[in-house]
């Protein structure tokens, strides 16, 4: 998996909020087709790192490369246009709007009438209906208000959106928070499906057991610093929990760290 160009390469990212060092020289990569678990306790810097990547925050230091090019997204709109689709904690839907309006929010289909542009509601509803059907939200019409949807259905819409707009990377920020057991299973299944489609996923969570089922690799942060980067085959879920609990990488796992190993290879 380490062979080939990484899709995302963040190098030595630092970010300070006032006196708080939210990120301290953190490097982070995502390779094509892999699911990366971004782990850490509350305040570890997981969300900050992702917000730096998607252009919500500007890093104080460091470089970001996407698809081999150096980038600096200055807004979520730019990162989204580049193909980074984020599924937020709150499930990323405006409750009072319909499914199809949410689906196309920010990327509405329009048609021209003279010099004016109007929403093409008919086409948006049709396209949305098609996707709803594919992703298994069959009993909902596109003009349903999203407030009535279950957590799993909301996830499905987010994932359908990522597929429809041909995202290159899907970031899921605590997607299983506040979901029932069955809905959680659905989300994990969807991540599996994205992976089958070759879509890389960054899965941010505290729940090691959820992420362990689907991820290929784990990056662990603690108080703004990277404390580990492991391939799934090298560590157990318990090992990861230990790293998070200790706030550093125990001696016995040091040689498994991919980030350290890489440095050592270069030095050798």
């Amino acid at each position, binding site marked *: 998996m380490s062979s080939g160009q990484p899709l995302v390469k963040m190098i030595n990212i630092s970010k300070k909020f006032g006196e708080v060092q939210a990120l301290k020289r953190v490097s982070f990569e995502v390779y094509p087709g892999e699911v990366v678990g971004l782990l850490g306790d509350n305040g570890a810097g997981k969300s900050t790192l992702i917000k730096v990547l998607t252009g*919500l925050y500007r890093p104080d230091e460091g470089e970001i490369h996407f698809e081999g090019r150096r980038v600096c997204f200055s*807004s*979520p*709109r*730019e990162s*989204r*246009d580049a193909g980074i689709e*984020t599924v*937020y904690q*709150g499930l*990323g*839907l*405006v*409750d*009072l*709007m319909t499914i199809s*309006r949410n689906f196309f*929010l*920010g*990327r*509405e289909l*329009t048609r021209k009438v003279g010099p004016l*542009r*109007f*929403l093409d*509601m008919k086409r948006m509803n049709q396209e949305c209906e098609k996707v709803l059907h594919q992703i298994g939200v069959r009993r909902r019409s596109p003009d349903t*208000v999203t*407030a*009535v949807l279950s957590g799993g259905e909301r996830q499905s819409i987010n994932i359908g959106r990522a597929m429809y707009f041909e995202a290159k990377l899907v970031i899921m920020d605590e997607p299983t928070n506040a979901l029932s057991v069955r809905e959680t299973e659905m989300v994990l299944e969807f991540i599996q499906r994205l992976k089958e489609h070759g879509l890389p996923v960054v899965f941010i969570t505290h729940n090691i057991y959820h992420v362990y089922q689907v991820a290929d690799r784990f990056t662990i942060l603690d108080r703004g610093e990277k404390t580990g980067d492991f391939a799934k085959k090298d560590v157990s879920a318990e090992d990861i929990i230990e790293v998070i609990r200790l706030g550093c990488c125990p001696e016995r796992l040091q040689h498994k760290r991919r980030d350290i190993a890489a440095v050592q290879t270069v030095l050798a």
Partner: protein
Amino acid sequence: MNFIRTMGKRPELGVLISLGVVWLAFVFLSGGKFAGLGNIAALLAQSAELGIVTVGVAFTLICGEIDLSVGSVYGLSGLLFVLLSSKLGSVPAFLIALGIACLAGLINGLVTVRTMVPSLIVTLGMSMFLRGLIYFTTGGFTRTFTEMDFLIDALGGQLGGGFYISVVWFLLIVGIFTVILRMTRYGNFVMAVGGNKEVAKAMGIEVDQVKLITFVLCAGLAGLAGMISASRFHSVAATTGTTTALEAIAAAVMGGCLVTGGYGTIPGAALGAVLIPAVGAGLVMSGAPAYWYQAFIGVVLVGAAVLNLVVHRRAVGQ
């Protein structure tokens, strides 16, 4: 339950029913006078001016903001239209007054999005500031057009039978802004920003820009309505528009706009703007003391807000 669901999807239904009830009650209480053509014409003239303001106010509410300065913008632009018409002619006066109204909206919007001070406070300050300017300029007196011309007629002239042309402008604006809200990207953004600002931002919507445009539109409509009012009366009083902001907000809420943002319709808000003058006129014609007007509106307003919320919660199944 079915009825509630229908109402949840069509928020203008509630205000339409209220309007029907109020109408029937006042026709009965006034011994038929209320249904007279003259009264209807007078009511619609008032509704048109309040209604044009209400359309803008509804946009700000749906966008998750509030504009308390529309009454002062209404008064000021009417005043500028009257004062400048005699010096520069009516067309430049109209454009300048409209421009200054939009400028007030732009300042409201810039201060709100830049400082994060709630628009409730920003626009309250703007309202007081502009009203102060009006009192200073007029010395508290009424100002009258020195001569009439085509534009003044086009804005506030009579159509015959006591009906005013302003009703046509009102309907046109309701139509245009209904389309803008429902059928354009900007309208979609307004609903998204008011419904959930964070999600809107994550979806790449320029939230601040949407809010700015909305404040400018709202103030522009208030300015236009103020000039229509000035044209209809041929004059502007120092107190013109002092109750307009609260009435417009009341009308929008009665028409189904949620004060918490993200939801509402323009036809509903416009019907709210018909309901309020109807209640005022109806009470007078029924022989009730005019003082009752505000008390009555207050009760109807809170009732409508509660009803909206209940209907809305049921409709979305929460």
